[in-house]
C-alpha cells in the first residue's frame, strides 16, 4: 500500500502531537493550581495566570492550523473527523486551562483565611480525581481508544460526588464558625471549577468516540426536546383554517 497524501497526513499527526502537548500542560496545571490554593502561594498564582496565556496561544495556533487544513486539503472520512475533533478539543483544553487559573485566583481572594483539614483533604481528592480524568481523556485521544473514553463518565460521577460532599463540609464548617461566609462562597465556587474540569474531560472522551466511530452523544436536552415534540397532542394535526372554523359554526 502506497501512502499518497504523506505531507497532509504528517500535518494531521502534527496537530495531534500539539494537542497532546497542550493536554499535558493542562494535566500539570491541575495539581499545581491545587498546591497554590492550599499553600496560599500568591507568587505561584501570578505565574499560573501568565502561563495560561501560553495555553491560549497554542490552542489558537492549532485552531488556525485546522482551518488551513480544511481549506487546503478537503479532508474526508477519518481525516475529516480528526480535524473536527481537534477543532473541538482546542475549546475544551483552553477552557480547562482557564479553570485552573480560576482556582489560583480564588487563592488570592481567600488569602489569610485558614481551611480546616477536612476541607483541605477533599480539595486534594477533587484535584487528584480531576487530574486523573483529564489524563485518561488525553490517553484515550492519543490511543484512539473508545473504551477508555467511554469509561470517563463513571470517573466523573465520583468527582461529582466529591463536589457534593465538599459543599456539605463547607456548610458544616461555616455553621461551626471555622470559616466565614466569604470564604465559604469562594470554596463553593472552587469546587465547581474542579467539577467543570471533569466535564471537559468527559467532553474530550465524547470527541474521541466521534473520532473513532462517528458516534455522537445524545444529550439529555436533545432527548427531552424530541420527547416533548412527540408527546405534543397537536403534533401532526393540521391547524384549522378560517374555512374550517366557519364550517364548524
Amino acid at each position, binding site marked *: *500500500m*502506497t*501512502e*499518497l*497524501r504523506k505531507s*497532509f*497526513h504528517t500535518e494531521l499527526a502534527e496537530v495531534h502531537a500539539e494537542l497532546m502537548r497542550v493536554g499535558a500542560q493542562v494535566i500539570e496545571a491541575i495539581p499545581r493550581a491545587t498546591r497554590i490554593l492550599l499553600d496560599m502561594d500568591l507568587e505561584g498564582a501570578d505565574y499560573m495566570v501568565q502561563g495560561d496565556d501560553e495555553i491560549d496561544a497554542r490552542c489558537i495556533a492549532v485552531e488556525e492550523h485546522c482551518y488551513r487544513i480544511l481549506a487546503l486539503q*478537503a*479532508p*474526508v*472520512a*477519518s*481525516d*475529516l*473527523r480528526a480535524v473536527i475533533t481537534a477543532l473541538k478539543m482546542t475549546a475544551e483544553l483552553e477552557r480547562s486551562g482557564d479553570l485552573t487559573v480560576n482556582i489560583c485566583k480564588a487563592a488570592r481572594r481567600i488569602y489569610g483565611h485558614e481551611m480546616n483539614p477536612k476541607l483541605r483533604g477533599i480539595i486534594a481528592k477533587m484535584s487528584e480525581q480531576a487530574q486523573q480524568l483529564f489524563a485518561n481523556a488525553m490517553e484515550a485521544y492519543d490511543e484512539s481508544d473508545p473504551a477508555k473514553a467511554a469509561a470517563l463518565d463513571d470517573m466523573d460521577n465520583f468527582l461529582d460526588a466529591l463536589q457534593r460532599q465538599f459543599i456539605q463540609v463547607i456548610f458544616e464548617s461555616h455553621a461551626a464558625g471555622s470559616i466565614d461566609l466569604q470564604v465559604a462562597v469562594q470554596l463553593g465556587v472552587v469546587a465547581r471549577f474542579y467539577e467543570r474540569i471533569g466535564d471537559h474531560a468527559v467532553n474530550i472522551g465524547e470527541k474521541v468516540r466521534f473520532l473513532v*466511530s*462517528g458516534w455522537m452523544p445524545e444529550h439529555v436536552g436533545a432527548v427531552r426536546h424530541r420527547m416533548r415534540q412527540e408527546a405534543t397532542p397537536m403534533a401532526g394535526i393540521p391547524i384549522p383554517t378560517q374555512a374550517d372554523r366557519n364550517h364548524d359554526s
Partner: protein
Amino acid sequence: MKQGAPHTVDNEQTSDSPLRGLSVPVSGTADANQAASTVFDIKDLSVFYGDFRAVRDVTLTIRQLEVTAFIGPSGCGKTTVLRCLNRMNDFIESARIEGSVLYHDVDLYDPAVNATEVRRRIGMVFQKPNPFPKSIYDNVAYGPRLLGTRSKSELDGIVEESLRGAALWAEVKDRLKQSGTGLSGGQQQRLCIARAIAVQPEVILMDEPCSALDPIATARIEDLMTEIKQKYTIVIVTHNMQQAARVSDRTAFFTTEINLQGDRRTGRLVEFDETRKIFSMPSDERTEAYVTGRFG
C-alpha cells in the same frame, strides 16, 4: 415530440424493439413517487475481454433520478461497468459478460433486445467532448432526425429545449448555424449533453465528463448535473473524488486485485452506499484508505 411532454417509448420508432410495450417512465414523466425506484439491477456482473476477466462480482442497483458515481483507481473496471449499462462494450469484439444487467426488469443482454434502442434510452457523454463536425443545430438535431423527426418546427423545438436543458441556449442561440467544434471545451461538452438529451433518454452515462475541462467549465457541468437529475438518471465515472462527493447521491467504490494471470489486474466492487456515508464513515477499510489517500 416536445421534451417534457409525457410519452411512453411505445411509439413508432421503437415498434420493432423487444423493449417495446414496457411501461417504462422516460424523461419528463417520472414523478416524485418513483424517485427511489430501480432503473438498473446489476447482479454478479463479470466482464471479460477474451479470457481476461477485467471486472468481477459487481452487484448494485441504480435508482431513478439519482446521480450514481463510480470511483476507484485506474484499471478497477468502473468504465467497463459503465459501458455495460448501454451495451457499448458490444463494439469490442472479444468482450462478453457473465451475470445479469436488468434494466427495468428487462435483461439488457437478452439476444432479442435491440442494442440501438438501448442506447437511445441510455445516452452517453464521453471524456473528451466529441461534437460532430456539423453546426450546433445539426449536432442536437442529429438524433431526432435519425429517429424520424422531419418537421422543421418540431426540430427547432427539440433543439431549443435540449440546449436549454444543457444550460447552453443563452450562449449559442444567435449562432446555431456555426460549427459545434468552434465552441470552447466546456461548451462542447454541454453540446454533447444537449445532443444526448435530444433523443429523450431516461439515463445519461457520463464517462469522466469533466476531465478535459477547466475548473469553471467543470463547475458548470456539475451544476448542470444537479439540475438535470430532476429529469434523468445519471451514472458518472470520475477520477475526481471531490466531484463524486459534490454531485452524487450514491457512490460505488471499485478497486483492483492481482489475479493469477500474470500482472494483469481484475477490478471489483468494494462498497456501494450513500455518498455521504462513503465520504464520512465508509464501512470497508479499503474504501476509507482510498478516499483518505492512504492507498494508491
